[in-house]
Structures are given as structure tokens and as C-alpha cells.
């Protein structure tokens, strides 16, 4: 006679750790691939029309509605999963093993890809500034600026590779804090339980969102940006804390539907703030609070949904997650190179969007298949 087992709160939490790793791996891949969609969509965003070099003549408010919601959840989710896998690596290989992995998988790709990505982006943009007949306001600005006899150089910026730079920074911080014995503090936080977290997390993020523009920009400076540390750091820490005990989240399951709806409602309020345009450098307390709530709860909602529905291994998802890193590294120059010429075409914008996304994704996957998957590059970005 087997003893009665305690009722499992939900199917996916009852599954073995391997299955959960699948779910997280898939989530990370989707978060990175969502980046391609997001960056492609920015060309048709009214909110970003005057800041984005590849901004098209046409735009639609619906793009804003979808893109910026994605934006608030995508990178927090990415850092949460990164934290989880960092803790797992730390447990298996120790601090020196982690350092070696970070050097090989993040530092080397960052140092190598950065000048290449930066150079090709600059090249595409310079070409576009000279050649495009219907330039975006930003492109026009760049054209004027390039026309100066001696254009001042700008400080180097990490561009869309900022996430690699921040992963390195967080790894260094993790080493320093652990060495100083602060690992136990995270443990004590986790012991307070998930409901506590659901309230504390948005409050932690709030000042970070206030200290930057809305929608928040990418922290591309080479100096660590305080707001980005404050916004993404807690997610990385939460991922660290969740390692080995995803079931800790189980009590939040019953809030899944109401939480998701609440996020959408809050987002509607936030979008109302944006009707007056994006803000730069500072955000008022109210929209910042909304952003904090959506980022915190939205990320948890997506995490829980992913754990429930993405837990099964699938060949397609597996291939996507293997190629996600490479795809994300190279997609932006490809996208810009495709979208600049598209600016002059008279196609309706959804067609341009679809074409840009399809072509970029195809090129990324093709290059992954040919250049990375079966070559030594696989050790670094595979």
C-alpha cells in the first residue's frame, strides 16, 4: 500500500527538475526571439518615430500597444532565467567554473561581436543616411551631423549587446557579494515566501523606473547605469534564489488569471500616460509605479505560464533555443540593413514588417546552421 501523496498544486511543479529546465530554456529562447520582433516593430511605433533610425513613414498605435508590453517583460524574464542558470552552474562547477564559462560564453562573444555589430550598424546607417529618399527624423539628424566638416565622435556604446555586458556585471557582483557572505541574505528573503515577493518586487523596481525614461531605453553606456542595475538586478537575484526550488512559486498559481488581467489593465493606464509622448531621463512616480507593477507581475505570469505549457521537450523549440543566442547577436545589423531599403518602398507597413522579420529570421537561422552549429563557434555562441 503506498502512502497517500500530498496533492500537487499543479502538474508542472510535480514534474522532475529536467522538465523544468526545459521550460526555462524555452522561455529564455522565446524572450530572445521576441527581441527580433520587438526591434522590427519599433520601425512602425508612433512613440519612437523620432528616435529610431529605421522608423518608417507609416506607423500604427497598435504596434506601440504590443511592443511596449513585450518590452516590459522580455528582458526581466531573460535576466530571471539567466540568474537561475547561473546558480545552477555555480552549484555544479563552483565560482572558478562559472568564471571560465562566463569568459567563454559571454566575455569573448561580447568583445568579438561588439566591434563587428557596431561597425556594420554604423555602415548600414551611414549608407542609409546618404541613400534613403524618405529618411526618418533620426536619420535626417544623422545626415546633417555627418555633413559637418569634423563630426564629433560619440562615446562607445554597447548597443543591443548591453545584455551581455550586464550579465558580466551581475556575475562580478555575484562573486563580490557571495565572497562577502551575502548569499545568506538572499536565502532569508526567499524564506519569506512568494506572496511577500509579489509585493516587494515592484517596490524594489519602482525607483529604478523613476530614474530613467518611459518607455525605458536600453542601458547602452559602458558605465553601469544605476537604473538598469536596480531594474534587472532583482530579477537576476530572484532567478538565483529560485534555483532548485521552482515549486516555491506554486502558491502564486491561483493568481495567474487575475494577475494577467490586472497587468493588462495596468498597461492600459500606462499607455494613457504615453499618449503625451515618451519621456527621457526621468519618469513621474505614477507611470514608474505602473511600469514596476507590470514588469514584476507580468514576468511572474509569463514564467508561470511557461512552466505550465513549455515544459515538454520539442524539437522545434530545442532548435530555436540552440540558435537563440546567435540569432540575437546578429539580428540587429541584418534588420537595419533590410529595413533601411524598405523605407523607400510603397508597401503597406504590415507587409514590410512581415518581410523584415521573415528575412532576418531566415538569415539568422541559416547562418547559425552554416557557421555555428557544427563549427568551433558552437562552443562560444551555440
Amino acid at each position, binding site marked *: 500500500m503506498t502512502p497517500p501523496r500530498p496533492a500537487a498544486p499543479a502538474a508542472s511543479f510535480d514534474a522532475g527538475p529536467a522538465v523544468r529546465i526545459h521550460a526555462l530554456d524555452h522561455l529564455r529562447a522565446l524572450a530572445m526571439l521576441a527581441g527580433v520582433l520587438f526591434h522590427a516593430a519599433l520601425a512602425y511605433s508612433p512613440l519612437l518615430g523620432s528616435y529610431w533610425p529605421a522608423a518608417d513613414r507609416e506607423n500604427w498605435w497598435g504596434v506601440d500597444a504590443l511592443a511596449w508590453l513585450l518590452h516590459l517583460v522580455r528582458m526581466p524574464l531573460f535576466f530571471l532565467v539567466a540568474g537561475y542558470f547561473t546558480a545552477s552552474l555555480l552549484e555544479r562547477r563552483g565560482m572558478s567554473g562559472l568564471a571560465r564559462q562566463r569568459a567563454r560564453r559571454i566575455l569573448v562573444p561580447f568583445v568579438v561581436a561588439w566591434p563587428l555589430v557596431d561597425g556594420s550598424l554604423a555602415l548600414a546607417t551611414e549608407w542609409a543616411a546618404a541613400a534613403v529618399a524618405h529618411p526618418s527624423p533620426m536619420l535626417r539628424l544623422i545626415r546633417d551631423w555627418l555633413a559637418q566638416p569634423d563630426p564629433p565622435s560619440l562615446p*562607445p556604446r554597447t548597443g543591443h549587446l548591453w545584455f551581455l555586458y550586464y550579465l558580466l556585471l551581475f556575475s562580478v*557582483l555575484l*562573486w*563580490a557579494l557571495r*565572497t*562577502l557572505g551575502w548569499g545568506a541574505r538572499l536565502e532569508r528573503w526567499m524564506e519569506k515566501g512568494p506572496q511577500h515577493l509579489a509585493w516587494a518586487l515592484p517596490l524594489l523596481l519602482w525607483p529604478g523606473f523613476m530614474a530613467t525614461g518611459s518607455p525605458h531605453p536600453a542601458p547602452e553606456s559602458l*558605465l*553601469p547605469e544605476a537604473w538598469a542595475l536596480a531594474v534587472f538586478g532583482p530579477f537576476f537575484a530572484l532567478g538565483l534564489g529560485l534555483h532548485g526550488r521552482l515549486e516555491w512559486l506554486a502558491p502564486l498559481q491561483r493568481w495567474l488569471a487575475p494577475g494577467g488581467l490586472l497587468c493588462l489593465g495596468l498597461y492600459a493606464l500606462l499607455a494613457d500616460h504615453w499618449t503625451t509622448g515618451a519621456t527621457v531621463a526621468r519618469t513621474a512616480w505614477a507611470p514608474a509605479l505602473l511600469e514596476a507593477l507590470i514588469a514584476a507581475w507580468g514576468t511572474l505570469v509569463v514564467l508561470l505560464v511557461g512552466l505550465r505549457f513549455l515544459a515538454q521537450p520539442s524539437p522545434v523549440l530545442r532548435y530555436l533555443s540552440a540558435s537563440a543566442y546567435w540569432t540575437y547577436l546578429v539580428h540587429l545589423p541584418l534588420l537595419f540593413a533590410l529595413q533601411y531599403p524598405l523605407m523607400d518602398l510603397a508597401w503597406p507597413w504590415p507587409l514590410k514588417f512581415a518581410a523584415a522579420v521573415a528575412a532576418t529570421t531566415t538569415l539568422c537561422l541559416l547562418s547559425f546552421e552554416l557557421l555555428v552549429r557544427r563549427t568551433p563557434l558552437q562552443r562560444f555562441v551555440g
Partner: protein
Amino acid sequence: MNFGLNVPVIRLLIVKDWQLFQKQLAAYVLAGFAALTLLGLAKPWAFYLGSLALIVVLVAAACFAIATSLLVERKEQTLAFVMSLPVSPLDFTAAKLLGNLLTFGVPFAVLLLGTLVVILTTPLPDGLVILALLLFGHVLLAYSVSLAVAMQVESEGWNTFAMIGSMVLINPFLMAIGQIEAIQGPLRGDAIAWSLPAALILAGQLLVSAAALAGTAWWQGRKAAFY
């Protein structure tokens, strides 16, 4: 060629010193991180505070690295334990010199490069590069002298004096180069103009630093035994 050095043990001794210094280093890394973040706020007050904090962290880390690896080891009599391991005085000197240069050199190089990048890529006048190099040159000199004294002199008082004295001299040094018109003039310009006094001072700093370290290595290396 390994010049008769016991390389594996030297490596272990460096790793050992690094492990002993790890906790302090973590604190300095955190402080340095905070200073960089201050710089990242892109406000004038934060910029001054951040760069000041960076210099303080660099100097403190340098001094405490020397103290932990040499002075504390002597004071707490753990030196006897190290000397009982299969190392010659030359191995020991090499481990201490290399280990210290590493703990100091890495953050020093990162800060120096960072400073140069900030000056060259921002609207700050590029002429400041010379001032920055002279400043870092002084820190390097002070560090090398402190390290040489710590390796040669057992007295704790003299060591403290060498460390604090050489680092504090940075103020009179700054005032002194402020008096030299040939150096002071081009600082606000956008060209990096080397004047003879500036070049001489920097060359002097580098030479004395190298001489202090090389002299220490030579002196310690020719000793047959520790006592």
C-alpha cells in the same frame, strides 16, 4: 627557461595570497562598482564624487594588498609557515612581487584605460590625458615604493610611513605641476601636447618605479636563505 624558479609553487602562493585577499578585494570591487555607477549618472557632482571614490578605492586596495600579503603575514607569524614550504627566497620574492603586481595591476590598468576612454570620447578636453597620466604615474610610483619598502624593511612603522607618506604626496604633487606653466597650459586644449617637463616627470615616475621593483627583486633574489 624558468631561471630555477619553482613555478607551480609560486602559482600556488599567488593563489593563496589572492584567496586571503579575496574578501577585501570583493569589498573594493563593490566600492569601485558604486563609483563607476556614480560616474554613470552623468551629473557633474556624481562625476567628481565618482572619480574621487575610484582613486580612493585604488589607493586603498593597493595599500591593503601589500599589508595583507606582506605585513600581516610577518606580524601574524604565518611567514614562518610559508618559508617552511619548498620555496627559495627567490621563489618567495617572485610570488610576492607578481601577486601584488597582479592585484594592483589589473584594477590599475582598467581604471587607467577607462579614464583615457572617458577623456577621449567625451567633450572633456583631450589635453587632460597628460594630467591623468601624471596622476596615475604618481599612484604607480607610490605603490612601487611602498611595495619595495614592505619587502625590504621589517619595521611596521616605516612601512606605514612609506605607504601613507607616498600616497599623500599626491596633493603637493598636483599643486607642484599646477605651478608649471608648460604642463598647465595645454590641459584645457583639445590637443595632447607633451611638454618637456611633463615628459620628464612621467619618465622619472616610470623609471623610479621600475628601479624600485627591480632592485627589490635583485636584492631578495641574491639572498641564499631567508634569515
